[in-house]
């Protein structure tokens, strides 16, 4: 079984910023949904931070809620 590494841990990112939309987009599906941690390998703690950051970015219109 292959073990995936958490992107944020391996890049030593301690705070996930909602303005970093290039990073946040990596964790979205083509339709704009947040990918599960099972798929991306992010730790539970970072997944919570990531989902908050994505939701902040969506609220500010930086990311879409759904992609057509």
């Amino acid at each position: 079984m292959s073990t995936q590494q958490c992107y944020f841990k391996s890049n030593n990112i301690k705070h996930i910023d909602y303005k970093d939309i290039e990073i946040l987009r990596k964790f979205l599906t083509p339709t704009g949904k947040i990918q599960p941690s099972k798929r991306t390998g992010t730790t539970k703690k970072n997944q919570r931070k990531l989902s908050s950051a994505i939701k902040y970015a969506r609220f500010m219109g930086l990311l879409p809620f759904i992609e057509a």
Partner: protein
Amino acid sequence: MAKKATTTFVAETLEPRIYEIGYLLSPAVRDEDLEARVSELKDSLTKLGATFVSEGAPEFIDLAYEMSKIIDNKRVRFNQGYFGWLKIEIDPAQVANLKETLDKNILLIRYLFILAPRENTVLSKKPLGKILKGERTGPTNEGEVPQMAAEEPAEAVEMPADKVEEALDSEIKEMVKEA
């Protein structure tokens, strides 16, 4: 009977905290007035005792989806806006007043008020304006303020191909005559 000791939460005793305000300014704001509008916003925050830690200059961006806001009982829709952010240090007791002042600001489409670390946490070096292609495309928003109308110069209007050729020919003839 002895009175029970009441434990009340006194927000005033808390130490100042670092907050981040992300804001979307209306596209009705002209580029030349942008600095003045931002400084007005900052002044209103300093009046409440906020000190600025860092800031991100507002950039014109295309919004990911259409937003609407009711201004003077009229629903105004926005597809573009200026996105900027401010990191401030403020007493938590003043947060309610701060939100009230931000709510009153008509030029703000939306704002986000969150706790943030002091240091800069943005990793990407590319500005948001470039990522989100903030280009003015003219007044596409319904009920937009008339100021926003993109004033295109009359010269920019395309001429039909035959007229362009005629104009060119006449110019060339004039040049030949002068020579």
